[in-house]
């Protein structure tokens, strides 16, 4: 990777193609710190007024910090559940013989390609029934459950690439089945685990529909819902504010992505031999 020469024409081409996106982000930033006349494109003067939501509550919308905290809890819990369950279930599906293994794999794949929005009504009813409606725990469980098929399938793909003989050697060296998994196999698919973690974190961070419907109250509200709430609010047509909140919402993801993008590549490169 490091010693590859930069291909300037290609870089230039990619730069041009992605320019609109870049320009939009730059614009978003500039707009969020300037006063702007609604009819004109060009910013008029610098202001921090749009960022006032950081220090004061916008009336009727709760604190942005509660929403941020909720989103963080939401995304990390989803990551924890998805990573733990996928890495164990993927192993079982890749390595163990058990009844209905093949149908199970088929169903997992089916669930992965199933549009989850169609489930929302029944999920809503179920959460009401078990008393998890409008709680963070409720949405976390739902979101994690919907992410699991993808995670399991990806993890299984990674496990499939680890040679059997490594496990045989481990057993022969005296390790238990669990030790073999934990000490010998899991370390080999760490790139996959990392990629899955990042992937689910982003999925959790950007989730909108589920929390909107299943956890709408102000103290369980996520950032995505908070932002949408501002935009929908008829008494508030402050575009500068929307832009600032939007920026506030994407910046963590962008920073996170900058640091982890090479790991994320693995999920598409390394282990998807089904």
């Amino acid at each position, binding site marked *: 990777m490091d010693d590859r020469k930069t291909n300037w024409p290609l870089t230039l081409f990619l730069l041009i193609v992605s320019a609109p996106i870049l320009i939009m982000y730059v614009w978003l930033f500039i707009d969020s710190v300037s006063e702007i006349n609604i009819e004109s494109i060009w910013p008029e003067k610098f202001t921090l007024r749009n960022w006032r939501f950081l220090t004061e509550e916008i009336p009727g919308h709760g604190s942005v910090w509660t929403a941020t905290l909720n989103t963080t809890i939401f995304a990390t819990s989803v990551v924890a559940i998805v990573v733990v369950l996928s890495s164990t279930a993927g192993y079982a599906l890749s390595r163990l013989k058990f009844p209905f293994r093949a149908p199970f794999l088929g169903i997992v794949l089916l669930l992965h390609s199933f549009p989850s929005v169609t489930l929302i009504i029944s999920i809503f009813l179920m959460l009401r029934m078990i008393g998890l409606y409008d709680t963070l725990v409720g949405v976390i469980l739902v979101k994690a459950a919907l992410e699991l098929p993808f995670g399991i399938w990806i993890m299984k793909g990674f496990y499939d690439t680890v*040679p059997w*003989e*490594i496990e*045989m*050697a*481990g*057993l*022969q*060296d*005296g*390790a*238990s089945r669990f*030790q073999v998994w934990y000490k*010998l196999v899991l*370390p*080999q698919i760490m790139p996959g685990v990392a990629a899955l973690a990042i992937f689910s974190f982003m999925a959790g961070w950007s989730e909108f529909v589920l929390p909107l419907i299943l956890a709408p109250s102000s103290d369980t509200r996520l950032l995505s819902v908070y932002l949408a709430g501002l935009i929908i609010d008829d008494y508030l047509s402050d575009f500068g504010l929307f832009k600032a909140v939007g920026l506030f919402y994407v910046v963590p993801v962008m920073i996170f992505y900058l640091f982890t993008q090479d790991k994320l590549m693995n999920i598409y490169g390394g282990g998807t031999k089904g």
Partner: protein
Amino acid sequence: MEIRLEKFSKSFGPVNAIEDMDLAIGDGEMIALLGPSGCGKTTTLYAICGLHRVSAGRIWFGDREVTHLVPQERKVGVVFQSFALYPHLSTFENIAFPLQIRKESNADIERKVKDIANTLHIEELLGRRPGQLSGGQQQRVALARALVRRPDVLLMDEPLANLDAGLRLEMRSEIRRIQRESGCTSILVTHDQVEAMSMCDRIALMHKGKIQQIGTPDEMYHQPKNKFIAGFIGNPPISFADGVVEDGRFVAQGLSFELPDQIKGASVSAGQKIAIGVRPEYLQPDFATAIEGEVTFIESQGREILYDLKLGGGQIFRSIQSSEQTCKLGDQIHWGIDVNSVFFFDEQGVRL
């Protein structure tokens, strides 16, 4: 530690990989499981180390029955064909792994790993990952890992198959040396007869899930029990010819000679169909029983020359000679075979 298999069978669903195998290996002995691909060598090996459950029969280590013990309780060191080193661990950690699992103290681990690394001449490699080692080095590390906890039994599945020719030669004697030093009862799985003959005390030749013959390399070569063994062992291979018994003579088209006394005395009757097998070294220009044919192939192997002789009946006999080339392609020549060293087989391929 002595190893005994009693009526060991293994089937995978409807496929019978091994049927009723009996095998006894003496303490400290090194035996080769030799046979063509798919004959059940690996299956046997995996049953002995406990990775495969046996379908029937029993396995004994000394006077301890291990048939139903899990691999962890068997004290068997295995070298896998692909070496199966743990790629995320250094050489040191790889070798130390079996000891760490048994929760030995760090000082002990350090000492034992250093010791075995010494024996195998891999001290300088202890800090490297498997990916940074050559094939031969990986193989030494695999061997070290198998031996470090002083197993009762050492099993090797085609340990030399992935090495180049030169390295194979070196590792052959190396493995034998280490096996002798450690005194482990060992089984070497291979499909290479030269490897089996040069490294092991005895050879068990397998075919289609059955052991055909067990014996020292010499016995296998000079006293094969049947046609398959005679044909499998020996390089360049033996030549066969079919014929019938007439008046105490072996008769085939373009070939006829007096049967040696021990065969005549045995149960051959006139008109019986038999086959002969002649090893290339027993067909030479100056041997007694003359045969006539055309030279159809000459290959110089440096020190020796290999000839194919086509007889009147179309049978091809091979000859290996160490003297200088005496004839050329297409020559009609008279050479001789040493009848006392010819193998005779009945119609079922069993040696007479």
